[in-house]
């Protein structure tokens, strides 16, 4: 291929990648290394509103000659990252005296002391969010694959007229806007909601699904499965259509049971799709956000993406939020390394 033709084919994608991926990333990196704020001075003002009169000293923006507020920019280096990672908080967790139990005063063993250190660290925003994000990713990934595959096998096996409606119904959760989906799940599991009442009438007693970190986390994971299993299903179902029928028939002739033909013929054929779904889902799961926002607002079951949102929305600090976003990206890359290595190895063997 001539160079000119090659450039003609590649250039549009390169431009798109630079505009949509590289530039924003560079911007975020830049923001994360700086800090900025509006310059203010303390002045005494009298303010009167419908709800009363206030006289006090409070900050007022410093304006330049043109009447615009003055912005201060400071180079922060890695300070935003250290602040998100809460290095101070970790130091205090390790430095605390744990020779005795703070409540009972009894001496503590080494495992108990380690537990105390871990407890304090898990209470720090970043580390608490990281631990739930990892738990969520680790639990949902295999379950998404298993349920997605089972549904795909089921739909593949039913008679033709039923297939269309079944595929449509199975895909619905994936189509629904995540916040709307999360809200509907919350409304199903609240006090006196449909599912809570149903479980109660079945004799499980009244279960409060938002009462602590464990139950809330359970609900977040349940929502995650409900929302993502359809994705695994549709990919694997498409894959099932490509399984060579003669190979399956040959296995049956050789006396293979249904399970054996699934395990030794179909699953190896779908292996690349399993990797694909795993890859996409890990990237998605590590960025879990909507159910956290809707169910718990970070109460016990938080996530890194929620932390970024909180820094942006609560603290209105887009520099720190950028640092948190970059740390999330680093986390995803670390998780994906084994998968990428595997793909690369397969690729090399294939070549």
């Amino acid at each position, binding site marked *: 291929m001539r160079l000119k033709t090659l450039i003609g084919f590649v250039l549009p994608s390169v431009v798109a990648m630079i505009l949509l991926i590289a530039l924003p990333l560079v911007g975020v990196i830049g923001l994360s290394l700086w800090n900025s704020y509006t310059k203010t001075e303390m002045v005494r003002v*009298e303010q009167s509103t419908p709800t009363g009169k206030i006289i006090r000293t409070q900050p007022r923006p410093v304006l330049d000659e043109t009447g615009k507020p003055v912005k201060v920019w400071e180079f922060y280096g890695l300070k935003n990252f250290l602040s998100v990672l809460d290095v101070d908080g970790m130091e205090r967790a390790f430095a605390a005296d744990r020779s005795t139990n703070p409540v009972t005063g009894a001496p503590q063993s080494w495992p108990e002391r380690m537990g105390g250190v871990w407890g304090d660290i898990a209470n720090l925003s970043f580390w608490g969010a990281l631990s739930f994000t990892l738990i969520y990713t680790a639990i949902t990934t295999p379950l998404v694959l298993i349920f997605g595959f089972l549904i795909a096998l089921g739909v593949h096996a039913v008679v033709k007229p039923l297939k269309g409606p079944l595929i449509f119904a199975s895909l619905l959760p994936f189509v629904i806007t995540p916040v709307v989906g999360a809200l509907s799940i919350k409304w199903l599991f609240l006090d*006196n909601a449909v599912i809570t009442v149903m479980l109660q009438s079945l004799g499980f007693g009244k279960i409060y699904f938002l*009462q602590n970190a464990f139950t809330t986390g359970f609900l977040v994971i349940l929502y995650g499965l409900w929302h993502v299993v359809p994705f695994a299903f549709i990919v694997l179902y498409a894959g099932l259509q490509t399984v060579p029928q003669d190979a399956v028939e040959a296995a049956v002739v050789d006396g293979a049971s249904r399970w054996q033909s699934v395990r030794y013929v179909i699953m190896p054929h779908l292996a690349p799709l399993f990797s694909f779904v795993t890859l996409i889902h890990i990237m998605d799961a590590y960025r879990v956000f909507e159910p956290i926002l809707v169910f718990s*607002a970070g*109460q016990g079951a938080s996530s890194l993406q929620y932390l970024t949102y909180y820094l942006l929305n609560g603290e209105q600090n887009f520099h720190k939020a950028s640092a948190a976003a970059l740390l999330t990206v680093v986390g995803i890359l670390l998780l994906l390394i084994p998968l990428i290595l595997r793909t690369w190895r397969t690729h090399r063997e294939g070549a």
Partner: protein
Amino acid sequence: MHRVSLSALVSGAALTLLMAGPALADCGFTGRTGTVNVLANSFPVLDHMAAAMKACAKDGLTVNVKLTSQLKEEVEQAFGSGASPFDLAQVGTGSFTNLAANGSLQPITDLVLKYKAKYDIQYPMLITIGKEVYGIAFQTNLQHLFYRKDLLEQHNIPVPKTYSEVLAAAKKLKEVGAVENPFSAAYKPGWDLANEFTNIYLSEGGKFFADGSAEPKFQSPEALKTLATMKDLVGYMSPNALGLATGDVTTAFQQGTTALGILWATRAAAMDDAKVSKVVGKVGFAAAPAADIGAPAATTQFWDAFVMPRSMKGDRETAFLLLMEATKLETMKAAPDLANWLRPGISVSQYAKGVQESVAAQAPSFPTEPYFSLVLAALGQQVGDYLAGRKTAEQALSEATRAYTQSAKEKGYLK
């Protein structure tokens, strides 16, 4: 034949609709041309005010009103830019504070003086900083006590005026099994929970900052008392308490599963909406309880106002006249229950009772220090950790102080 009867039916229906809707007064000024762009929240009351402004859009005057659900973000972006795309905007207490702190608002003192008599501008509607008027307020909103009249009467419980009376009433209601969860409030960690802390803490006499500085002062005995009260209240709430937002508390009342609660005044009318409520006519409204006898009501007052940007494209007098049309007596009178209107004598139905009693009980204003939002962000997380039992009260307060100090330093408010 068939055709005639159908058209008669349609025009009859249209006539009924016209008569049922609030009759809007005519526009009170003429002879102005140009375009005025207005930004406001998408609440029913703003719909109503937008209609009053649009009634003036004739003879060469164009009025565009954008109703948005992202008002805070949009108005701060628009007014902060070099040339604001909007000439007039509605803002809440928090946004007003930020806009004023960034120098984005235009003084309108001259216009107020010019039209004060014609539009009967009432003194409480004015928002002034120093000697200049920066906004015209039209409504207030606050959280107050909602209670089940029937249940309190049946069990001989007086309407609680302090939090110790709330706790005593909740205890009694729980003992007799009158209701599933005696008390309810929006305790979802984040803004809601930090706001509930603010309510009780201010009533306890607590201070958030050292006078005249951003230095935090909420690691205090009053804060410990506030946290203890909140923990006691949680004991009478649904075990899901830390997952509940305002909408969920409203539903709990409507479903009849709770008897006492703190809710926004704007939710009062929904208690008597027979389509969604099982407790029509059974819910009463009163002042928010105080932290102690003689203390101010444990709630804060919010207001909504119209403001104009420092950098505007449209004609400022025309924009101001539209503001006057939206807030004149006739506009407010046409829809007395849509808001708690600031002009006296309009919003006087039973749904305004909780607001009036809270104001009479000295409910303070919502804090307007520019750095207060950082305190809310810090407390919203830590108070949740305390109530969930992950931290002691002292730990939670020192962590919140640490988080606030860090973010206030990053924003340049603390050195």
